[in-house]
């Protein structure tokens, strides 16, 4: 498990901006009188920037609420729909003109796929899909921040991972001296994201999840994201190269047979396609 902050981890305080395509979709939805509240909830749930900021706001002292929220629908309910729409308007206009960066985009594609996959695996494992969906969306927020703040080094990581056929987190350790789990943990603390979410962001590549002292529920949610990550990586959706789960971990999720995992892959592809099309349109990019 991640415990201490690596010494060479740079200080990063900025927020992650929305992708211009997602920002544009959000504005279209607000402007379209025929679109439903559900449409806006859906597109917000697919945006790393807005989802993380909404959770930060919903769990802030400003709302003086005792329970922690990790689900976007609950966050919108707490903040209020008109307020969320007005915030979306202001933020999206700001991000609309940002040039579309290929790496940002491919990282988003991967996160969206892991998000969808986490929701599906969670439901099969008897959990509600809301929280795991958010965990999946934000699991690689460390990579997004590294790419934003250390572009040149992250390009080296991508190259090394491809050339040496090693997972990203190993290439990151070699190039940067820390990995995206370390960066994600730091960012989650800076942004005051819910503790369980911060745990998943930090530890989704660790190999001692089953042995840690956390609750079974949190272990399960972390493994759900780890499995979703591994399945999406095996299908090469977006920019990714992740490791696999141990037999014990697959067993914990009751996904031991190849046939089960193959069926799951087919469902992930189908659902991911529908989510992506919702933002991008059927024509893709």
């Amino acid at each position, binding site marked *: 498990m991640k415990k201490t902050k690596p010494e060479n981890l740079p200080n990063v305080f900025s*927020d992650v901006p929305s992708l211009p395509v997602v920002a*544009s979709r959000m*504005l*279209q939805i*607000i*402007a379209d*009188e025929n679109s439903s509240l559900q449409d806006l909830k859906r597109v917000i749930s697919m945006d790393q920037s807005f989802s993380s*900021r909404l959770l*930060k*706001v919903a769990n*802030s002292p*400003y709302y003086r609420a005792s329970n922690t929220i990790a689900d976007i629908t609950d966050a919108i309910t707490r*903040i*209020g729909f*008109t*307020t969320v*729409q*007005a*915030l979306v*308007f*202001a*933020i999206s*206009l*700001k991000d*609309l*003109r940002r040039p579309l960066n290929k790496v940002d985009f491919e990282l988003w594609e991967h996160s969206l796929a892991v998000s969808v996959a986490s929701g599906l695996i969670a439901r099969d494992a008897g959990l509600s899909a809301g929280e795991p969906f958010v965990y999946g969306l934000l699991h690689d927020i460390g990579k997004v921040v590294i790419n934003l703040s250390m572009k040149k080094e992250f390009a080296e990581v991508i190259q090394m991972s491809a050339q040496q056929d090693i997972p990203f987190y190993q290439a990151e350790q070699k190039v940067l001296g820390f990995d995206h789990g370390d960066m994600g943990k730091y960012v989650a603390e800076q942004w005051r994201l819910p503790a369980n979410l911060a745990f998943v962001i930090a530890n989704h590549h660790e190999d001692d999840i089953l042995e840690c002292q956390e609750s079974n529920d949190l272990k399960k949610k972390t493994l759900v994201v780890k499995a979703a990550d591994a399945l999406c990586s095996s299908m090469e959706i977006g920019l990714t190269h992740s490791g696999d789960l141990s037999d014990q971990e697959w067993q914990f999720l009751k996904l031991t047979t190849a046939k089960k995992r193959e069926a799951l892959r087919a469902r992930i592809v189908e659902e991911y396609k529908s989510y992506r099309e919702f933002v991008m349109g059927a024509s893709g990019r």
Partner: protein
Amino acid sequence: MDDIENIGRQEVLQRYVAKKALQDLRSGTSIEGPMLQLLNHYPLFNYCRQETTENDKTILKDIAAAGQNELPLRRFCLKLLRQFEQHQDIKDFFQELWKKSSEYEIKLEVLWSLLSYGDLSEDIYAGISEHFDAANWDKWLPLIVEKLEGDSEEKTHVKELMKRYFNL
């Protein structure tokens, strides 16, 4: 049964009001402020939109562009024109109006259509970012909250959150 009859009666009434409003616009008869308030809101606005035809485009453009007209009337006409936003003449009109108008009320009404144009010029994009930024939020924030049908408390709330959590 009474409820159904009541709903039916309301619909007939709203259709009548919408038809009358469009007739007034076409004939140049003025529409009073309180009535415009009602026309600009749902569900009455939907009936007005249904009554609008392509033949009304010219008159609506003329009213919307005339700076001496009341802002609620100009906004009402711009909202009615949105259903034709992909017509080339309306695209040109909205872009021209964006450049010429200084009122945020007018800019906000055309903004939605402008954002749906894939071929929007860079200078208009730059103008949008410049106008709807933090420095000007006192001008546009109340309007956007009103457009989203929020109340005055909501305005304060949004501003507070933007300051605290969104660095705006």
